[in-house]
């Protein structure tokens, strides 16, 4: 399987009108509120990644967008239509790859794709789609005989063959080997370039880093962080780290003159971590490093493995999940 596209995420087409609009979405199951006031937009040609821990409310949000559940409150519009109340208006314009594959075990790969083709008004060629997802040589194999990764590819093929304008992908590469995952990523970039709006939920943060034009991190039903990857990481700031010297506790660590710099220990107090966020991160991080080196010189200690690095998406994700777990 080969596709033609660049490796970097495309530029978010901010000028286009959103095709998916979610405002203050709330979804309850009895007394439990699974989604609590979620809002976001997705534009044509944009990939919006929805990240979060298990039970964060991602799948419930996607279910509402797919029209499978009526929102308890809030507004959800896809191409200006309510997906639950006006499903006929969206028929053929949206499709989904669910967390479970949702495939009929007794059909073959080709029969499965052809069935999806048959149910679409403006389908793609099934043979072309099977080649795109790398299943051409499995076309006569029964679905029950496929591996987990192959089933994910087939589920994606079933969605693609219907030529959707909006595609919901709930953990689409789970169970795939690294090579297969990269092939699917290239395919998704192609779809974006052609104007398909994509909502991606995933546990693979690297997937979001590579594909998402914008992303949001959900936890316990709320969006805690949202923006472009660069924006989210810039807001999160740089981290200065070093191995904790012998006989030094967190109370003994120097406090920089810049009081906005957060000081903490990590990995069972093996590492000291100073987080610098806000304006002029580079200048303020340099000043903090200078202060730390001066402190080490005064105390005759060395700061082993001293380093400064920008925050990763994993840092942000773990901080969001960790902060809320402590609450």
């Amino acid at each position: 399987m080969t596709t033609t596209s660049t490796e970097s995420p495309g530029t978010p087409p901010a000028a286009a009108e959103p095709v998916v609009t979610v405002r203050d979405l709330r979804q309850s199951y009895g007394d439990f509120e699974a989604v609590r006031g979620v809002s976001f937009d997705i534009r044509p040609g944009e990939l919006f990644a929805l990240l979060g821990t298990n039970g964060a409310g991602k799948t419930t949000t996607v279910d509402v967008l797919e029209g499978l559940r009526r929102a308890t409150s809030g507004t959800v519009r896809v191409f200006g239509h309510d997906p639950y109340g006006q499903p006929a208006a969206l028929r053929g314009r949206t499709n989904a790859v669910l967390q479970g594959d949702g495939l009929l075990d007794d059909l073959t790969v080709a029969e499965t794709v052809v069935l999806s083709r048959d149910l679409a008004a403006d389908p793609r060629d099934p043979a072309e789609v099977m080649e795109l997802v790398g299943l051409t040589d499995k076309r006569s194999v029964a679905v029950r005989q496929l591996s987990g990764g192959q089933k994910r590819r087939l589920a994606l093929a079933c969605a693609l063959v219907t030529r959707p304008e909006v595609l919901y992908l709930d953990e689409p590469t789970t169970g795939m080997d690294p090579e297969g995952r990269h092939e699917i990523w290239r395919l998704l970039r192609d779809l974006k370039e052609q104007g398909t709006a994509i909502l991606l939920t995933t546990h693979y943060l690297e997937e979001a880093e590579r594909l998402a034009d914008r992303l949001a991190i959900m936890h316990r039903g709320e969006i805690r962080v949202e923006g472009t990857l660069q924006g989210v990481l810039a807001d999160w700031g740089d981290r200065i780290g070093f191995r904790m010297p012998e006989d030094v506790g967190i109370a003994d660590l120097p406090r920089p003159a810049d009081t906005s710099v957060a000081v903490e220990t990590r990995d069972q107090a093996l590492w000291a971590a100073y987080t610098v966020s806000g304006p002029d991160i580079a200048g303020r991080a340099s000043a903090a490093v200078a202060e730390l080196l001066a402190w080490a010189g005064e105390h005759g200690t060395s700061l082993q493995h001293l380093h400064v690095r920008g925050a990763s998406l994993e840092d942000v994700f773990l901080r969001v999940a960790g902060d809320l777990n402590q609450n």
Partner: protein
Amino acid sequence: MTIATTRTAPRPTMGALRQTLRLTRMEFTLFMRYKTAWLFLAMALFLIAVPLNTPGEEVFGGMASNELSALGMMGSIAVIIGVGHPSNVFTARREALVLKRMRAGGVPSAALFGAVTAIVAGFSLVIAALGVGLMVSVGAGMPQDPVMLLFAVALSAVPMTFLGLLITPLARNAESAQMAAMAPIMLLLFSGGVMPVGLFPDILHKIFSLLPSAATGQLIQAGYTGYDVFGGFEGASAVGPFELWVAALPSIGVLFAWTAVLGVAVHRWFKWDPRQA
């Protein structure tokens, strides 16, 4: 290979009827591959054949009691296939998220239900045709009003399929759905199938005639014999085609009423997703 460009022209649309026909083709393929489905077909045919191999006494118009029993069992074909097959496969599909995926892909519920109903009706008609063949082979003659007979079998497939679909919210997997389906199958078999309601005392006859399997059985008996059996076998008389259809209207009404009630119930209680409350 690059994926084909997204079309910019206005998107065509596909009607629910066309989707239903295409899903019916899929249902047919899957039905042929399910061993359990073949078991339901064999069971329905077996239950028609059993009475024909037992002795019977003439009841009216040259028709023996065992032949009327066999015709009554024809009224239960859709009970066995319609309750047994959809309850089994739709529970399995719900748990495997097949139904959720299809709904998310824009397939309307009417198309999904319509396709399985069409398959139940189609195979019920095949078994009915084989049943007629068995009747002819034992010397019962040809049906007097085959249209009424086939109409009854096909129409009964609708409420029975809905009943099968209505069982799925009660079952957590295909095996428990099969178990749950046995209760209504047995109830309906013994209310007009095993023993024709025409042989029941008057009050029981009136009560059981309100059940879909009994109403179907009466329509089949009337269609086969050309006799107005809707008031019971006692005093049943041969009537013309028009009079027969007029006499059949209450039984047809019973089937439509069950279709409406069960249809509303399916719309209200059917679960598409294992997580659905």
